[in-house]
Every structure is written in structure tokens, then in C-alpha cells.
């Protein structure tokens, strides 16, 4: 219910950041529409069926995928289940208290969840073992280890790479008993939603904001595009507003940016 404590950015630093933007540059040397260095390590957790460690600058996120067996929801007896959970760990910043997921962790999980679900990334109809009785449950657990802004993209990239590289033992119904198959199989992947996040700082639209930038921004806009160029999830964040024209502009910027990031993600996956 209460807003999180933001990073305290001094007036001098704020001025410095904006002045730099006016000159077409971020204080860390990037252009306004450049991402920070992105480093993705898939399969970092051997005990998980899928995993990825994403470093987006100093924002560090690990996501693990576990495959379990569950009972389908009554209204979708022929579909597997997706459960996305996020915790911004207290390791991530001095403002993060240990405890049950706070509203930021919950929002993060729900936005990543929508990106996966609405892009139709996974064909859940293929995750059924026995209709109405046993389906696979895909747990996507996101642990934010280090916080330096743009959690949505970092968590989203970690989640999609972990899912794309997941391998698990299928369960086969043999006379009423579920028996583990002999060979691991991948998830039935059919699309890949790519998230990009923009922020408005002063009058400037930038991509991949750092925490410092988020702390002085007006607002933030995260957009997920599917492989066919459809928008499949949007989330505005931050306690300010965006001009209607900003939104229209960001939607176009996001489209080309998401194509760029899609190539990066696909490269990581094909090398995994």
C-alpha cells in the first residue's frame, strides 16, 4: 500500500543527469536508447530444470524453472499451469527488508507472468498428462540478487531464457501410475515475448533506466512484443504521468528495440 523508499538522488546529481541527457548521453556514457551490457548465463542451477543468470549492468537476476505435477484448474482441465513468483532479495539493496513478497515483487512477478502468458510462449495444451487429473506445473521463480534499475526487463529475460533452455523428464501414465520417462524433453515453446522498458526523465525518453534514473523519472513504460510484432503486454510504472505523445512514440521505439533484444536472446539460447 505504501510506496517503496526510493534512492535519494541529490539535486546536484539530478541536474548532472539531465544535463548529460540534453547532450545526448547518459551519465554512464550510454546513448539514450542504448541498453547496458547484458550478460546471460543459462543453466547456472544444475538442480533446476531450467535456469538463467542475467546481469544487466549491476541489476542481477537469477531465475529457475522447476517442473512439477499438479491438478489442472477446473475451468481449464486441458492445460498445464504456470506459476511465476518473484522475490527482490534483501541482498539487492539497502531498502529491501526481508519478509514476504512486497508489492514491487508481486508486480514484477505478475508483469513477467503476463509477458509469458499473453505472448502464448508456451503451448499449455501440450502440458497435460491426464486431462482433468494431472498436468505439468511450470514454476518460474525469480530471485533479484542485485538492484540497479529496470528489473522488469532483466527478470523477463532471465525467465524466457530459463524457459527456452528447460529440459525435464516427462511423466508417462502406465496403468494409472506416473512413470518417469527416460529422456529429457524441452517445453513446448511457440513464441518468445521480448520486453523493453523506457523511462521519461525530464523531457527525455531513455531505454533501460538505472535505479538512479528511475528515482528521478516521471514514469516508466514496459512493452512486450511477440515474434509477429504484436504488443502482448504493457505496464506503466512510476508515480508520474506520460504524455499521450510520449506513449505513442515509445510504442514505436519499443518495436525496433525489441527486435534488437530478440536477436540477443536468441543468440544466447542457441548457444546454450
Amino acid at each position, binding site marked *: *500500500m505504501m510506496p517503496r523508499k526510493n534512492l535519494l538522488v541529490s539535486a546536484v546529481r539530478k541536474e548532472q543527469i539531465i544535463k548529460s541527457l540534453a547532450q545526448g548521453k547518459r551519465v554512464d556514457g550510454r546513448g539514450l536508447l542504448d541498453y547496458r551490457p547484458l550478460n546471460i548465463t543459462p543453466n547456472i542451477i544444475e538442480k533446476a530444470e531450467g535456469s538463467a543468470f542475467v546481469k544487466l549492468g549491476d541489476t542481477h537476476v537469477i531465475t529457475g524453472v522447476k517442473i512439477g505435477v499438479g491438478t489442472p484448474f477446473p475451468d481449464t482441465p486441458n492445460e498445464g499451469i504456470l506459476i511465476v513468483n518473484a522475490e527482490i532479495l534483501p541482498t539487492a539493496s539497502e531498502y529491501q527488508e526481508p519478509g514476504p513478497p512486497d508489492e514491487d515483487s508481486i508486480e514484477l*512477478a505478475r508483469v513477467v507472468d503476463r509477458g509469458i502468458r499473453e505472448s502464448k510462449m508456451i503451448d499449455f495444451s501440450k502440458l497435460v498428462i491426464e486431462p482433468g487429473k494431472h498436468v505439468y506445473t511450470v514454476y518460474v521463480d525469480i530471485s533479484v540478487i542485485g538492484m540497479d534499475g529496470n528489473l522488469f526487463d532483466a527478470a523477463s529475460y532471465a525467465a524466457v531464457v530459463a524457459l527456452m533452455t528447460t529440459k525435464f523428464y516427462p511423466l508417462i501414465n502406465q496403468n494409472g501410475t506416473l512413470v518417469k520417462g527416460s529422456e529429457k524433453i524441452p517445453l513446448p515453446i511457440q513464441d518468445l515475448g521480448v520486453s523493453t522498458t523506457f523511462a521519461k526523465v525530464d523531457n527525455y525518453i531513455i531505454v533501460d533506466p538505472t535505479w538512479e534514473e528511475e528515482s528521478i523519472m516521471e514514469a516508466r513504460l514496459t512493452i512486450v512484443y511477440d515474434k509477429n510484432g504484436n504488443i502482448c503486454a504493457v505496464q506503466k510504472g512510476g508515480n508520474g504521468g506520460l504524455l499521450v505523445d510520449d506513449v505513442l512514440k515509445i*510504442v514505436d521505439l519499443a518495436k525496433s528495440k525489441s527486435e534488437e533484444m530478440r536477436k540477443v536472446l536468441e543468440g544466447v539460447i542457441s548457444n546454450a
Partner: protein
Amino acid sequence: MENQLIVNGKRTDGRSPTELRPLKIDVGIIKNAAGSSYIEHGKNKIIVAIYGPRDSHRYGINIERATLRCRYHMSPFSTEERKNPQPSRREIEISKVIRDALEPSLILENFPKTTIDVFVEVLQSDGGSRSASITAASVALADAGIPMKDLVEAVAVGKVDGTLVLDLNDIEDKKGESDMPVAFMLNENKITLLQMDGKMTVEEFKAGLMMAMEAAKKIKEIQKEALTRKYSSGERKNDA
């Protein structure tokens, strides 16, 4: 089957694609609150109470401006299936985005070290309950005398049977292709809430945004009428 949501240009409730559901706002219904409102938007029935600004003794409170808190909550009887009274993850997320939607409109610097509470109770839910909550909450904040730059109004657009439609009802929300709630501060041409799920082309997205903005103008008139109705009836509260 699925493309039965629009038949001959008419939606399940008889509306045209660009038509709002009936929308009614009452102001000042809770005695103890600093401000309050009641909205019926479609089958949504929502009550909002504002408490504050009140001094906050919480450690870490903002010393330069009021801190806005927001709780969006659904009564157990508000949904088809009884809802567990504990706040769900959905309610927690919506509480946050409502707060973010309202905050840009408020001049919080006037009340340093205080807290302003926005309590939203959904008595009956229909499609678009978060939008209706924002529309009602903004009116309640005005009723509480919190200084604001503009009212905020919200409405959803979406895609149903391949058609862009305004103000989705429950079944359209659940069975339609996409749902996009938007909140506006019209005076400043600003968007303060924007979410979307489902699939839309870029063109549909842009057209939807414009459709929502047109509807917001109508909603703003209803908000203003509700406030006028109360304050012209001589019940005006002191700003103190």
C-alpha cells in the same frame, strides 16, 4: 462460438463498440471520512473513502510531501465465486497501480510528513473494476479537499471478436483478445495508468488509446456533475 460476443454490431449487453456502460457517481457518503464516493459503472459497485492528510509517525515517512497509500479490496461477496477476504496478489498489484495513477494529479507538497489514505472497496465487481476505482477515487480525493491539478478518469479498451471496443464488461474481459485500462489527466494530456494484456497490433493499440481518451472526456463530465451536485446542495465541507 467465441465470436458471438458481437452480433450485428451489438455487444452482449446491447452496446455499440464505442459505447460506455451506464456510469453513476455519488459523493460524500461516509460520515467519518475526509472524502468519499460511490460509483456504479456497469455492474461494478465500488465505494471509496479518503482519510487524511494525517500526521504520520511512521519511521521513514516522506518529510517533503504527503505519502499516498492505497488499498484496493474486494468484498467476499463481490464476485461470482466467493472471494477469500485476504488480499490476493492481484489486489496488491492493483492497489499499487491505482496509487500510481492518482498520485500525479495531487499536490502532495502541501502536506509534508502526513499520510493520505485511499481505501477502495469493491462491493460488486464487473469488468473494469480498477478503472472505475480510479474514477471514483479521484472524485473522493476532490471531496476530501486534497488540492489537485486535474481529476483522473479511467476506462478500458480492448479487442473483442477482432473489433476494438470501449469499456469491456466481465465476459468481454475474460473471453476477449485483449484488455487495456488507461487513466488520464486530460488537462495535461497525460496518461497516468496504462496496462495491457492480450494481443494488439501497434495500430490497434494507438487507435484504442484515442478511443479511451474520448471516453475519458465523457467520464470527466460525470465526475464534475457529481461534485457539483454535492457542493451546490450546500453541504460543502470546510477545507480545514
